[in-house]
């Protein structure tokens, strides 16, 4: 089954409450996905020349501060960080590849969940209500966010198999559905240099979009190509640095509702998740058409 939610704020005055609203949206869809939950939130842009990485390690008392200090000393650049549950958001004054390379050499057990200027990506096993509490989502401010509650069908219930999946810099993907051609697509993408961390079908879709965007496609073009190349059932929500997009497969079995007011745009598997947002009663509500890309961007 799975539940997906997205909230994009049009007014900065609402930004302090983004996390609070997204928590409530995820909680409302707990019974669509009680196995695990995750969210990507766009907030606190890294200073120019710096990059933000969300890191995960399963050990409860992993030495994150030590990692940041060691990385800073060895590379000779400023590295700051903040632990949040089992995750750590690292802001490092260096190119992305330098940070990635250092981590793979010195902390091979650390998993990189998301990378970019603004994105922070948190996900874990467990009931969505507990997961968002562990990460303190309700206190987080930001401009937009996506979330997922997972009922696993295609692969194991682990933190790594949870959504969102990062799809390149400041990009992430949440998925309700299942893909049927992911094995062949994974082989094809692997030959084109895309690396996969799990056997999950959604990670393949994420890799597919990363590949097309890397080849120069716009997000809109990549999503349209996906409609013909990705076989299966899906409602996807995709987060970008300054907006988000929604697309459903041509059969459109997997539910989706969009709602918009002057203050926000919300997407969810069910209206229940939107009903408690301020002004939801008066919002324009519609069901996204099959095989159609919907996107919003900050002006």
């Amino acid at each position, binding site marked *: 089954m799975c539940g997906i939610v997205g909230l994009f704020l049009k007014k900065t005055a609402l930004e302090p409450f983004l996390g609070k609203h997204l928590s409530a949206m995820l909680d409302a869809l707990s019974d669509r996905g009680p196995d695990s939950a995750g969210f990507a939130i766009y907030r606190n842009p890294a200073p120019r020349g710096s990059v933000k990485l969300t890191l995960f390690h399963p050990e409860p008392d992993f030495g994150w501060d030590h990692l940041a200090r060691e990385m800073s000393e060895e590379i000779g650049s400023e590295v700051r960080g903040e632990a949040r549950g089992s995750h750590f958001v690292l802001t490092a004054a260096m190119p992305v590849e330098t940070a990635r390379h250092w981590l793979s050499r010195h902390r091979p057990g650390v998993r990189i969940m998301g990378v970019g200027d603004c994105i922070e990506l948190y996900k874990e096993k467990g009931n969505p209500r507990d997961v968002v509490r562990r990460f303190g989502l309700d206190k987080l401010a930001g401009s937009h966010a996506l979330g997922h509650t997972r009922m696993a069908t295609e692969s194991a219930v682990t933190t790594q198999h949870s959504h969102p999946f990062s799809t390149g810099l400041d990009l992430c993907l949440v998925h309700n559905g299942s893909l049927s051609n992911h094995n062949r697509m994974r082989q094809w993408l692997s030959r084109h240099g895309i690396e996969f961390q799990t056997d999950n079908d959604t990670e393949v879709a994420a890799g597919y979009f990363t590949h097309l965007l890397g080849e120069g496609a716009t997000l809109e073009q990549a999503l349209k190509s996906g409609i013909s190349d990705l076989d299966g059932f899906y409602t996807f929500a995709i987060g970008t640095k300054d907006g988000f997009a929604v697309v459903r497969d041509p059969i*459109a*079995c997997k*539910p989706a*509702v969009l709602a918009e007011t002057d203050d926000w745009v919300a997407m969810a598997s*069910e*209206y*229940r*998740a*939107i*009903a*408690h947002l301020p002004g939801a*009663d008066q919002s324009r*509500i*519609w*069901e996204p*058409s*099959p095989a159609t890309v919907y996107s919003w961007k900050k002006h």
Partner: protein
Amino acid sequence: MIEVDVEALGVRALNERLHRLPPDTNERLWKITNPKGAHALAAGLDRPLTIEIEGHVGYYCGGMNKQAEITIRGHAGPGLAENIMSGVIRVTGNASQSAAASGRGGLVVIDGDASSRCGISMKGVDIVVGGCVGHMSAFMAQAGHLVVCGNAGAHLGDSIYEAVIYVGGDVESLGSDCIEKPMTDVHRSKLEQLLASAGLRARAERFRRFGSARQLYNFKVDHAAQY
């Protein structure tokens, strides 16, 4: 009129209260507030109640309904009036996919649009849609009527049996074994009756009729000996 805030009472408690009403109940008029997309509201009723729901509802509202007349002032989620047996269910807004799926009787009126698979496997229900319907509507429809005042999406009436479809607007494409058929006076009068019972004002003259060509496997007498 009895007013119930379903957010405060809970769906299960509300439905139990409605199910426990005796056949000769005087508590016939109900107003339900704050549905906020809740599932299975007023499902499984079997009393001549009049129920008004103020707001948007989630999955399976009014499912399996018998006798009751339910009005939803808002939009409805997937599976509205699924397997309806009798009574009337009306939505003033839009309905999501599979509205009135497998319905055996009664009337379902959607003032706005219905999404994909409206009337899938319908078995006798009458459905009147003021707006448009999505793709694969009336898929494997067995009996009853589907009236669409607006346009119909792709593959309308795929593998249809004996149900009758009337469309006032454009049809994107017809499904397998579904064909256009002539509108006779009998059909026009039936359509007028359906529109009138739905309280919709649309001119019956502009509608076209669609139904089964009866060419698929199960219609071939040659196969009868295999059973």
